C-alpha cells in the first residue's frame, strides 16, 4: 500500500527538489533513482507474495477517487523502468561526460518527472488518469529531447511536441467519447465500450493517439529524429521507456477490451509488421549509429505491436506475456545500446558507422556492450528477446498463424542484418588497427551500458520471474 503511493510521489518530489537547486541535483537524483529501484523491488515482492494490490488515494473509491491498481503487469513495468533508470542515472552522474548532454539543472528534474509520471501511468486504473499521466510524461520527454540544445535537437523536439500534442488530442477525444458512452472512465468499462458504436469509435481514437505516442508505423515519422538527436541518456530513456508507456496502455486496453476490438487488433498487427520492415530497411541504410538504433526502435516497437495485435486478450495469456517479455528485453537492450552509442561517440567524436574503424582506437567495453545488446535485440538465445520470440511464435503456431510467423522471422533476419553492420566493426582488428592503438578507458557509462546489456542477456535465463509476476492479475 505504501509502496504504490511512494513510488509515484517520491520521484515527483525529488523532481521538484532538483529543479529548485541545480547544486544538489545530482546526489538527490541519484538517491531518488536508487530509492525508486528499491521501492520497485519491494513492490514486486509484495505482489508476488500477496497478489495484486489496489490502493485508493486518499481513501476515495471509484468512480470518484483515484485508484492505483498494482497487478503483476504493473509491477513488471515499474521494475523495468527502475532498472533502466538506475543505469541511465549512473551514466548521467559521470561528471566527465560533456556538460551540455546532462546539464544537472535540466536533466535530473526532467528525468525524475518522467519516472514519476511513468510509475503513475503503470499504476493507473482509469482512462482519465492514464491521459493525465501521459501528458506529464510527454512534456517531460520533450524536455529530454531538447536537452542538448542543438538546433537539430530543438527542431526534433518541436516535431515531437507537435506530434505528441496531436496524439494527446486524439486521446482526449477518445476518453471523452468513452465517458459519454459509458458514463465512467474506469478501465473495467472497456469491454462495455466495445458493445456500442460510440464506444468503439472512442476506442479507435484512443488507439490512434497511442499509435502516435508509441511511434507505431506509419505514425513514427517524428521518432528517429527525436531519438537520434537527443543526448544519449535521453535517447535511452525515450526509446526504452517513454515509448513503452504508450504500448503499455494499448496492452491494458487490449487486455480489457477482449475480443470486441478485432479491427484495432488487426490494425496493430499489420502496422507492427509494416514497422518491422520499414524500420529495418532504414536501419540497414542508416549512416549514423544513433539513427540506426532509432530506426531499430521503430522495428522493435513494430514487433511488440504485432505480438499485441495477434494476442486475443486476457483469455489466452501466452501471446501478451510474450509481448511483455519483448518489451522488457527491448527496454534493457535499447537503453544499453543508446548508452553504449553515447560512449562510442564520445570516444570517437562522431557516430558515423563508416568511421567506426578508427585505426588508433581499439574496440572498448562500450562496443562490447553494444554487441551484447544487439544479440538480445535480434533475439538470439539465451536472451529475453529470444524467450519472448519463442513464446510468441509458439503461440502463433498453436493458432496456425503462419503468416505472422513468417513476418516475425523476416523481422529477425533483418535485425540481424542491420545490427551486424555495427557489430562486425566492433570486432575489428588486424590490419584495421594500428599496432599502438589505445583502448578507451573504462567509464561509468561503460559500466551502465554493459550492465544493462548483460541483464538483457541474463533476463532470458531468469524469465521465470516476469512470467510468474504476469500471472498475477486483479480478479
Amino acid at each position, binding site marked *: 500500500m505504501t509502496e504504490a503511493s511512494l513510488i509515484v510521489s517520491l520521484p515527483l518530489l525529488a523532481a521538484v527538489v532538483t529543479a529548485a537547486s541545480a547544486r544538489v541535483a545530482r546526489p538527490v537524483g541519484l538517491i531518488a533513482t536508487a530509492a525508486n529501484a528499491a521501492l520497485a523491488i519491494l513492490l514486486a515482492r509484495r505482489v508476488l507474495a500477496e497478489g495484486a494490490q489496489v490502493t485508493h488515494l486518499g481513501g476515495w473509491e471509484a468512480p470518484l477517487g483515484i485508484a492505483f491498481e498494482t497487478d503483476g503487469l504493473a509491477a513488471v513495468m515499474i521494475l523495468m523502468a527502475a532498472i533502466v533508470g538506475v543505469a541511465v542515472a549512473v551514466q548521467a552522474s559521470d561528471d566527465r561526460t560533456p556538460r551540455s548532454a546532462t546539464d544537472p539543472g535540466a536533466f535530473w528534474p526532467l528525468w525524475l518527472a518522467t519516472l514519476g509520471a511513468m510509475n503513475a501511468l503503470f499504476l493507473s486504473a482509469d482512462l482519465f488518469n492514464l491521459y493525465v499521466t501521459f501528458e506529464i510524461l510527454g512534456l517531460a520527454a520533450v524536455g529530454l529531447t531538447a536537452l542538448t540544445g542543438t538546433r537539430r535537437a530543438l527542431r526534433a523536439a518541436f516535431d515531437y511536441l507537435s506530434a505528441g500534442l496531436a496524439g494527446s488530442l486524439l486521446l482526449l477525444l477518445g476518453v471523452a467519447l468513452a465517458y459519454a458512452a459509458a458514463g465512467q472512465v474506469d478501465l473495467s468499462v472497456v469491454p462495455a465500450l466495445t*458493445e456500442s458504436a460510440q464506444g468503439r469509435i472512442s476506442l*479507435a481514437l484512443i488507439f490512434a493517439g497511442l499509435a502516435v505516442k508509441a511511434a507505431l508505423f506509419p505514425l513514427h*515519422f517524428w521518432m528517429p529524429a527525436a531519438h537520434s538527436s537527443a543526448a544519449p541518456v535521453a535517447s535511452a530513456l525515450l526509446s526504452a521507456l517513454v515509448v513503452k508507456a504508450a504500448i503499455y496502455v494499448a496492452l491494458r486496453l487490449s487486455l480489457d477490451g477482449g475480443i470486441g476490438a478485432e479491427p484495432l487488433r488487426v490494425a496493430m498487427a499489420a502496422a507492427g509488421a509494416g514497422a518491422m520492415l520499414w524500420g529495418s530497411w532504414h536501419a540497414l*541504410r542508416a549512416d549514423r549509429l544513433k*539513427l540506426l538504433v532509432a530506426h531499430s526502435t521503430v522495428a522493435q516497437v513494430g514487433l511488440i505491436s504485432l505480438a499485441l495485435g495477434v494476442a486475443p486478450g486476457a483469455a489466452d495469456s501466452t501471446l501478451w506475456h510474450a509481448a511483455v517479455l519483448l518489451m522488457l528485453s527491448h527496454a534493457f537492450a535499447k537503453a544499453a545500446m543508446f548508452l553504449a552509442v553515447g560512449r562510442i561517440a564520445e570516444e570517437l567524436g562522431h557516430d558515423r558507422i563508416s568511421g567506426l574503424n578508427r585505426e588508433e582506437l581499439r574496440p572498448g567495453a562500450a562496443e562490447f556492450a553494444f554487441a551484447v545488446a544487439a544479440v538480445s535485440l535480434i533475439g538470439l538465445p539465451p536472451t529475453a528477446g529470444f524467450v519472448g520470440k519463442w513464446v510468441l511464435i509458439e503461440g502463433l503456431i498453436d493458432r496456425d498463424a503462419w503468416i505472422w510467423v513468417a513476418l516475425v522471422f523476416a523481422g529477425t533476419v533483418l535485425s540481424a542484418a542491420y545490427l551486424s553492420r555495427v557489430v562486425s566493426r566492433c570486432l575489428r582488428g588486424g590490419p584495421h588497427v594500428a599496432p599502438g592503438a589505445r583502448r578507451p578507458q573504462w567509464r561509468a557509462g561503460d559500466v551502465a551500458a554493459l550492465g544493462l546489456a548483460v541483464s538483457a542477456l541474463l533476463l532470458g535465463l531468469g524469465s521465470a520471474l516476469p512470467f510468474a509476476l504476469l500471472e498475477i492479475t486483479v480478479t
Partner: protein
Amino acid sequence: MIAVPIWLVPAVPLALLVAFCVPVLRPGVRSLVPIAPLAGLLAALADPVPAPARIDWLMLGTEFAMTDLGRPFVAFTAALWSLAGWQALRLLRDDPARDRFFACMLMAMAGNLGLLVAQDIASFYAFFAAMSLSSWGLVLHGMGAAQRFAGRVYIGFAIAGEVVLFAGLSLASFATGDTRLAATAGPEVPALATALMAAGLLVKLGAVPLHLWLPLAHAAAPAPASAVLSGAMLKAGLFGLMTILPLGTEAEPGAAATLAAIALAGLILAPCLGLLHGDPKAVLAYSSVGQMSLMALGLAAALAAPAAWPAIAPALVLLAAHHAFAKAALFLGVPTIWATARGPARSAVLVLLALPALALAGMPATSGATAKAALKTGLDGAADGWLVWLEPALFAASLGTALLMIRALILLAGAAPKPDVAADVSLPWLAMSGLVVAGPWLVPDPPVTDAAAGLSDLAPIVVAVALAVGVAVVLRGARLSVATMPPGEVLSLVARRPEPEPVLALSAPVRRGHALVVRRSRPLTPRPERGALAILFVAAALAFAMAVTGPETTHEPETPMSDTL
C-alpha cells in the same frame, strides 16, 4: 629350438620402426634391418610351430597363428627380406634419404610378415595395407620423373585394390558374421564378396590387366626393393587368394574359367610385352607377371577340380618359393652388375646370374624343374575338359620365361657400370644365389612327381635359345634394332606432362566485404504536415473500421453498463 612368440613376427620390424623415430637411434636401428625379419624365419622353422596368440584389445580383436599354409610363405618371405635389407644397407649407404627408405622398408616388412600370420580380417587387411602403402615409398624413393610416374600408377592400383579388398572383406565378414580370415573361404560367403576380394588380391598378384603397375614399379624402385616386391609381396597376393578362395570344396567352373583366361593372357602377354622393354628390371618384372600368371593358372585348375587341390597346393607353394628366391637373386644381381666393370668379372657375374634364370625357365635339376613338375602332377590330377590346354600353357610359360631371361641377361651384359655402387652389394646376392642353387634340397618334403626330369623339360629352353640366336642373326644381318617400348604400356599414353611450377602462389584479390562498405541514406527530413495528415487519416480509418464492424454476435457482454454504475 627357441620358442618364438608368434606376435613377434610383425612386432620386431614395427618396434624397430618406432625406434627409428628417435634420430639418435637411427644408425643402430638401420644396421638391424636385415635382422628384423629373422624372428619370422625362426618362428617358421620352429618345431613345433609357435602357439596361436589372441590379443583381444588390439584393433577389432587380433589373432595370430602360424598355419600350415602360412609357414612356408613366412619362411621364404623372411629370408628374402633379410637379404634384401642387407643389400639395401650397402647400396644406399650414402643416400641422403636412406632413413626414409628404411622406414618404409621396415613398415612394408612388418606388413608382409604380419599378413602371413594374421588370422582375423582386420589385422590381415591392416598388414596388407601397411605393406602396399609403404611400398609406395620404396617405389618413389629415387624421386625422378620415372619414379613419380611409377609411383602414381602404383598407388592408384594399390589403393583401388585395397578398397576393393575392403569391400569384399566387409561383405564376407558380414555374411558369415565371423571376423576370422579363415571364414572368408566358407560356403556362405556371397560370390560378389569372393569376387571383390579376389580382384583386390589379383592387383597385388599382378594379373593381367591389373599388372600395369608392376613393371613400372619394379623398374623404378631400387633393386633390393624390386627384389622384395617381386619375390615377397606378389606372393602375398597369392597367399591371400589361397586363403580366401573356396578351394578344395566345390567346383566353381565360371570362376575357374575367368581366372584361367586371366592367367593365360598373362602367360602370353608377359613375354610379348617384356621383350620390347629396354630396362633389365622391367624385363624381369614382366617375367614375374608371367610366373604369377602360372600360379593363377594353378588356382584356376583347383577351382575347377576341387579334388586336385591337395596336390596343387603344395606345388603352388613350392613354385612361389622357387620364384621368390630366383627372381630375388636376379634383382639383387642388378646392383652387382653395376658394381662390376665390363670384363671377365662381369662375365663371371653373368654366369652366376644365369643360374637363377635357368631355374626360372625350368632347367632340370633346379628348383624350377621340381616346382614345375609338382605343378604338372597336380594339374594332371585335375585333367578334364579344358585342362588339356594346360600342357601347352606350361610350355608357353617356360618358353616365355626363357626368352625373357635371355633378354634380361643380354641387357644386363650391356649395362653401364655405376662407379658409386660399392662392391659389397654382391654379398647378399651371392647368398641368395646360394639359396637358389640349394633350392631343391631345401624343400622339407618334396611333393611326389611322376616323371623324372626329362628332355622335354629342356625343350622350351632350347627353343628359346634358338629363337634368340635367330632373331639376333636377323637383326644384325638386316641392320635393324629393336625399338623399345615406353614404360607403362597404355598408361604411357595418358602420362601427365610435367606441369609448370607455379611462379607465385598469389591468390586473387578479395572483394571488399559489404560489412565494411558505407551506404548513405537520404538526409533525415521530418515533414510535420505529412505527419499531421497521417495522424488524421489513421485515426479516421480506425474509427471508421470500428464503427462499421459491430460487436460480434457470439460474444455476450460480460459486464452490462448498469452493473458498474
